[in-house]
């Protein structure tokens, strides 16, 4: 058995707790969950590296958020819709978003489902009801209410999940979306991934409320804060929240307290604002290390199995990257598609004169 890394807070559960909190099949679920948490960690590490080498243009890691993303993803049903915030790409992959398609997206090539139109880490995932995201903060919270309205209106069994960060709770769209969900008692789960930083601004500068989940009271929505780095707590809490939502008890809000263990994005330098001691606290709450300690303690995975898992993930990533790196960029004609259902003037004319306008260099 591997030793617990120094300083990591162990997850305080025994087998009996786990059976109660996680339900039947909990051992298999934990193994699956661990595999995806590890996947997220390895993916972030690989792509931050590729960004630093100039091979991808941008990357937004979710290191520290993995337990939240995976725990939620494992509870979703096919008919559920997800409106992501900023760091839920792993959730889309757990739901079944094709890894190769996602990696094509990270390279912005012609095989990217969004045709290289968005910055990396802004995937679209129609096959897994993972809604294309904007870089604007908070807009998706209102849209999630609309999606849930449609589900309720049609007696659709699905629910909607909206993710957002701590910074988004300061936006007018947070207020609007929560308010609408409360008024119409919509089947929507609001998940605030509070990683305590909105780029460089700490959460205490976003609001005077010490616990963000308390904001839900203003909208008549039950809310609670949990330790979002505790995979077991995440899964158990969201399982209960989904049960409430699916049985017509209206919206729920869960604030998951996590630690952003990497820069905001590849363009950010946290040494300018993160206080000393932050990373030590973050590492104590490393969701991967904490889950691994639990797996080791329960003997759910041997070192060999973990090693094989790691190797399999790394191979999978390597293959996807190799294929994406040789794929061609989007063809110029894609510039003229999808602005409207059919191009209208002057876009039609711009398309028709493209070859002439772009044709070669002046002598």
């Amino acid at each position, binding site marked *: 058995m591997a030793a617990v890394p120094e300083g990591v807070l162990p997850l305080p559960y025994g087998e009996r707790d786990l059976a109660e909190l996680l339900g039947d099949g909990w051992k298999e679920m934990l193994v699956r969950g661990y595999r995806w948490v590890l996947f997220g960690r390895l993916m972030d590490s690989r792509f931050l590296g590729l960004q630093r080498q100039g091979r991808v243009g941008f990357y937004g890691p979710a290191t520290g958020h993995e337990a939240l993303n995976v725990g939620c993803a494992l509870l979703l049903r096919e008919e559920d819709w997800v409106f992501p915030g900023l760091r839920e790409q792993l959730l889309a992959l757990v739901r079944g978003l094709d890894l190769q398609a996602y990696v094509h997206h990270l390279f912005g090539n012609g095989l990217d489902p969004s045709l290289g139109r968005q910055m990396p880490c802004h995937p679209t*995932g129609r096959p897994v009801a993972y809604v294309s995201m904007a870089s604007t903060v908070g807009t998706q919270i209102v849209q999630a209410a609309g999606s849930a309205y449609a589900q309720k209106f049609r007696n659709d069994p699905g629910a909607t999940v909206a993710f957002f960060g701590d910074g988004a709770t300061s936006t007018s769209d947070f207020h609007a979306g929560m308010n609408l969900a409360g008024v119409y008692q919509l089947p929507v789960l609001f998940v605030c991934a509070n990683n305590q930083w909105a780029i460089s601004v700490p959460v205490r500068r976003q609001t005077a409320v010490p616990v963000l989940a308390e904001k839900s009271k203003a909208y008549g929505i039950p809310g609670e804060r949990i330790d979002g780095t505790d995979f077991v707590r995440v899964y158990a809490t969201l399982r209960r929240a989904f049960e409430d939502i699916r049985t017509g008890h209206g919206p729920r809000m869960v604030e998951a307290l996590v630690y952003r263990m990497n820069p905001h994005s590849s363009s950010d330098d946290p040494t300018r604002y993160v206080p000393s001691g932050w990373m030590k606290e973050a590492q104590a709450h490393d969701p991967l290390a904490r889950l691994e300690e639990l797996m080791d303690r329960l003997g759910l995975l041997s070192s060999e199995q973990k090693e094989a898992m790691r190797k399999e993930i790394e191979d999978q990533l390597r293959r996807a990257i190799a294929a994406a790196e040789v794929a061609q960029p989007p063809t110029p004609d894609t510039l003229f598609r999808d602005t409207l259902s059919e191009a209208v003037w002057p876009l039609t004319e711009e398309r028709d004169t493209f070859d002439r306008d772009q044709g070669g260099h002046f002598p």
Partner: protein
Amino acid sequence: MTEATLIQGVNQALRIAMAKDPDVIVLGEDVGVNGGVFRATDGLYKEFGEKRVIDTPLSENGIVGMAIGMALQGLKPVAEIQFMDFIYPAFDQIVSEAAKFRYRSGGEFPSHLVIRTPYGGGIKGGLYHSQSTEQLFTSTPGLKVVIPSTPADAKGLLLTAIFDEDPVIFLEPKRIYRTATGELPEGDARVPFGKARIAKEGSDVSVFAYGAMVPQCVQAANVVEKMGIHAEVIDLRTLVPIDVDAIVGSVEKTGRAVVVHEAPKFSGFGAEISAMIAERCLYSLKAPVLRVTGYDTPFPYTLENLYLPSVDRIARGIERTASAT
């Protein structure tokens, strides 16, 4: 065919669309029990119920954001923003989201919705119940912008908008909600986008307008007719898509053009029409293009009739353009 007002055309389009398709949902402030502050949604609540005619909280970003979420799920939401002057809290949802969903998702997530909103002056509404800011939306790729000026067009263009596949900003000239009257065709009588309407035929000068300025321009054309000037008034109907052929065709015929709108001149939609004429039929012109517009100020209360292009001011513009050599 029945005689009706422009707002009755709007109301009929909504009723027909809702009866035809259970996915059509109307939402906005006061649209339910009250039937809308202008009564555009009158009777719909009673006929279709509170789940399809939704009184929303006072939250424009909420109304449009919710409509987008519904649209992604395949519903056909028709959101009302009570006055165009109140649309700005929803600007982010319109410009960053509705206008970009199809493009940014490679076509995976089209977001088709209609945003209806009364616009324009002439009702003593002051700064915040009078503005015309259509150019904010025409300059955003990914939106269609529609402005009817007759009851039949209000009905037919709104029906087309509701069953279109793109986000549509549907601007209703509130000043002529009840003064514009005319025949209303029965049933689902749609009017296609991108086809301008000749409101009055003429051969001496082309006058381009939309919304509440169309009847003003027709009156102005009647005034100059007594002076022997035959102005052709073209109702653009839809700014996106724009009927380029109608504009160019008319200017090639007359060689003179006046563009009229309520919005301020600078960077207004008239600049687009003027540039289009300069790019495509400069050599047909016998006189410079003239714009008759609202002044480049915020919208005044007491002096609104001086601010807005009046029949006299338009007639003078037409006369000046027609007589320029």
